[in-house]
């Protein structure tokens, strides 16, 4: 018996405190996975009780157990197929009547149920008095009152679970009397058993009731198991029609009605109702939060605060966390082989690339931690439904949902979001069509990583109108996103499942610190585990694409010749000095590394005292080298220093040329050139193509790659100048086309993974990558080719495009949504 494993399911309606109970029971030992085929979270946890290991599955919160929503289907399939030893039905003690509606459905599934009246304190505060013993008697099951947030009643609940699981005899629980419908139900039951379609996992009465409700899943089940399914389902349909004709009420309405009436009867006999109905505080708060003018203003304020705290303040925190990541990089630098004069060992190049790719993502952790914490506060406080309530009308016009608000805010509705948390927070949208539309458009919003490219281009090509150009780019994405989402809704998403909006507006709650921190940690961990690991894997692929096939042997020989020449010049210059002897063989390379280390240490040192300390350290390390690096008044040393500076410069030039040639030659470079004929109409040359291709790994890469392609000729030359110099033919029209393409750029790697997780299929991930690419090319081509043909300046084209997008948005908003219920 000791080995026996117990399975407990937690069921309950949303907002009943179920997750509090789950956390109280299982503590830290939890695991989140997906139910197969749907994007519903499966939360599993464990605890030990009297030597038994108990597995707890937290079913999604549902109001009912029909087959209309994935959450409900998943919950009831779990109960029927996994047959948990006990189902704990958690309910808000202050809202008993409505909750019993679900309890009756659980009891019909003929599994042992324990009723857990949670939040007893809230009920008592409201003056609701519940006769627990009487309730248990009327329902025929155990009833355990708890206040789980204080862990009060936990032991009693654990003991009851163990006792009920150990009981051999099935209990005679109460069931709903469906009155006039009972004979019809019994007829279906007897025909089910007579025809031998006893479905192993499915209780007879439950199956019959579901057939009376016209449940499509149970009908399918019959089709799969009954030799003459059509006749049987025809019979069930006949029963349904007969009932409706006789009583002028659909069977499913009658069933729901009877459940409510049964709940009402029990409620009346066991509960002394409280003083007030809705907590007056929530009502008062809502008078402002949902107010016609104040409501939207508060919403804007909340969004601003969310941005400010996470993006702005979170970014400030990265100033403190970045040095940690930089340490990781220098550690990698120190353990990999040193670079040669012109040969960078492959292992070193790879290790640094890998660390840089991962660091770029890990750097976001402080931002994400704050963001996820704030989202948890919004969720727990009950503000989210209010947000949806305020925005639903506007977003609904474009095929989105009131609950698309938060994902869009996170994705960067103005400037500076991140698509990853945006896509991840789409989970809560109940309507599949709107959820997919939201997931697909979020990558087009302005994430933080797109901004550097905008800033770069605006500074070069729109220098006279910086403010206007920045406003254009910040708002154009919303004007593109809305019509696109409407078009997607009317086309590819047309046949997707929809759900009614009907949504509970729960009373406000004060979030707990434990709950908020727990959720923030959990989601950051999910990000690290799922996203970063895959990004790391793909970083390897991109490295290969950028590094190979590399430089040919002849070219390598050429570079080696250049290197030897530079060396020869250097040694000729210093031949007469005493230093020449000390720089023979390996030592010259040692000096190069020493020089670079000294320069970067000097750069990193802030203030005079720190700079002095760096000098002291390097002097102590190698006094001879130091003399050459910092010659002071020594004439000979100054001569060597001058010659050496030339050598360093020659080395830099060679490394730069080699890197350029490597990218030029690389698979990605070839791809960029191969694409040039197609992208020419959008005004992109192959360099831009390569930058855009590399942006797929992470959007900030676009600027980094451009930086590599436009290497500085002089120290300290800004990328703006370099790019303007290298691309003389480039105009503001080119830049505008490029910026618009960036707006519509396909999701980055991390976002693609998030799309796959949330949309639940690789197909949608590929679609989310393909359609923005096409759209982006069309928009960029339109701007560039049409703009060139009409002789528009970049600034004029910007206005023209803005007008076009605005018109599209208005038209798409006016196109009516086809009614779901016509």
């Amino acid at each position: 018996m000791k080995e026996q494993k117990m399975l407990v399911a937690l069921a309950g309606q949303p907002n009943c405190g179920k997750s509090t109970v789950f956390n109280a029971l299982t503590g830290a030992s939890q695991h989140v996975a997906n139910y197969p085929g749907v994007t519903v979270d499966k939360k599993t946890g464990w605890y030990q009780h009297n030597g038994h290991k108990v597995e707890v599955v937290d079913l999604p919160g549902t109001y009912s157990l029909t087959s209309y929503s994935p959450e409900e289907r998943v919950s009831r399939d779990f109960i029927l197929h996994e047959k948990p030893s006990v189902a704990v039905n958690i309910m808000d003690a202050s809202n008993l009547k409505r909750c019993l509606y679900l309890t009756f459905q659980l009891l019909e599934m003929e599994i042992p149920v324990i009723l857990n009246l949670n939040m007893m304190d809230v009920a008592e505060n409201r003056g609701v008095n519940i006769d627990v013993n009487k309730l248990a008697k009327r329902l025929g099951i155990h009833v355990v009152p708890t206040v789980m947030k204080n862990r009060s009643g936990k032991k009693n609940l654990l003991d009851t679970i163990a006792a009920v699981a150990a009981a051999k005899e099935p209990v005679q629980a109460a069931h709903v009397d469906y009155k006039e419908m009972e004979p019809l139900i019994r007829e279906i039951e007897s025909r089910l058993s007579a025809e031998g379609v006893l479905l192993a996992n499915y209780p007879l009465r439950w199956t019959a009731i579901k057939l009376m409700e016209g449940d499509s899943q149970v009908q399918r089940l019959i089709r799969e198991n009954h030799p003459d399914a059509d006749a049987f389902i025809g019979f069930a349909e006949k029963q349904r029609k007969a009932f409706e004709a006789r009583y002028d009420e659909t069977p499913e309405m009658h069933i729901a009605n009877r459940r409510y009436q049964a709940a009402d009867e029990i409620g009346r006999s066991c509960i002394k109702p409280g003083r007030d109905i809705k907590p007056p505080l929530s009502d008062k708060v809502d008078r402002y939060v949902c107010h016609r003018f104040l409501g939207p203003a508060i919403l804007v304020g909340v969004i601003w605060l969310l941005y400010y705290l996470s993006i702005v303040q979170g970014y400030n925190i990265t100033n403190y966390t970045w040095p940690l990541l930089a340490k990781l990089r220098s550690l990698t630098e120190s353990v990999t082989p040193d670079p040669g004069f012109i040969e960078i060992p492959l292992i070193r190049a790879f290790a640094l690339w890998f660390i840089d790719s991962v660091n770029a993502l890990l750097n976001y952790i402080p931002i994400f931690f704050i963001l996820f914490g704030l989202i948890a506060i919004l969720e727990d406080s009950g503000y989210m439904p209010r947000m949806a309530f305020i925005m639903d009308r506007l977003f609904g016009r474009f095929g989105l949902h009131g609950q698309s608000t938060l994902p869009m805010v996170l994705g960067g509705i103005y400037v500076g979001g991140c698509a990853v948390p945006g896509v991840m927070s789409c989970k809560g949208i109940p309507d599949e069509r709107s959820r997919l539309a939201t997931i697909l458009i979020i990558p087009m919003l302005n994430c933080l990583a797109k901004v550097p490219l905008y800033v770069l281009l605006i500074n070069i090509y729109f220098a006279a109108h910086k403010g206007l150009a920045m406003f254009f780019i910040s708002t154009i994405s919303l004007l593109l996103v809305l019509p696109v989402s409407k078009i997607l809704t009317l086309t590819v998403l047309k046949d997707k499942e929809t759900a009614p909006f009907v949504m509970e507006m729960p009373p406000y709650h004060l979030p707990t610190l434990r709950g908020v921190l727990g959720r923030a940690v959990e989601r950051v961990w999910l990000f690290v585990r799922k996203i970063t690991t895959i990004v790391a894997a793909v970083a390897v692929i991109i490295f290969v694409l950028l590094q190979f096939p590399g430089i040919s042997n002849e070219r390598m020989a050429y570079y080696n010749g250049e290197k030897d020449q530079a060396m020869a010049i250097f040694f000729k210059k210093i031949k007469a000095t005493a230093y020449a002897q000390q720089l023979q063989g390996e030592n010259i390379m040692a000096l190069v590394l020493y020089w670079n280390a000294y320069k970067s240490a000097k750069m990193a040192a802030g203030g005079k005292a720190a700079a002095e300390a760096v000098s002291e350290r390097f002097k102590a390390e190698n006094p001879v080298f130091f003399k050459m690096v910092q010659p002071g008044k020594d004439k000979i040393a100054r001569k060597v220093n001058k010659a050496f500076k030339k050598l360093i410069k020659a080395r830099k030039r060679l490394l730069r040329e080699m890197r350029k040639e490597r990218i030029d030659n690389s698979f990605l470079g070839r791809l960029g050139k191969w694409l040039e004929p197609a992208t020419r109409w959008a005004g992109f040359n192959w360099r831009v193509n390569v930058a855009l291709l590399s942006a797929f790994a992470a959007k900030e890469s676009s600027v980094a790659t451009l930086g590599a392609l436009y290497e500085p000729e002089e120290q300290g030359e800004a990328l703006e100048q370099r790019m303007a110099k290298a691309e003389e033919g480039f105009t503001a029209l080119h830049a505008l086309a490029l910026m618009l393409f960036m707006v519509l750029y396909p999701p980055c790697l991390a976002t693609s993974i998030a799309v796959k997780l949330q949309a639940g299929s690789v197909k949608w991930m590929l679609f989310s990558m393909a359609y923005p690419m096409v759209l982006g090319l069309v928009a960029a081509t339109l701007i560039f080719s049409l703009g060139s043909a009409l002789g528009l300046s970049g600034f004029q084209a910007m206005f023209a495009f803005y007008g076009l997008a605005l018109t599209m948005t208005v038209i798409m908003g006016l196109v009516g949504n086809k009614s779901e219920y016509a």
Partner: protein
Amino acid sequence: MTLDQLRPGSEARIKRLSIGDKLGQRLMDMGIYPGLRMKVIRNAPLEDPMEIELGGYCVSLRHEEAGFVEVEPL
């Protein structure tokens, strides 16, 4: 009369739901069933959706959906 025609502040008794299927079931599951007294609390800032109170808890729904709930004003 249907629920979508009620102004904020008015009270009514639910008479009948004139739709079945997914929406009808959802309305029932959310506690909107015949015989119950309810009150319209408010409309959203852009008119739609609306918020109603049903014996102890609040539910918001779109006017289009409320059009299928027949009510008897009190």
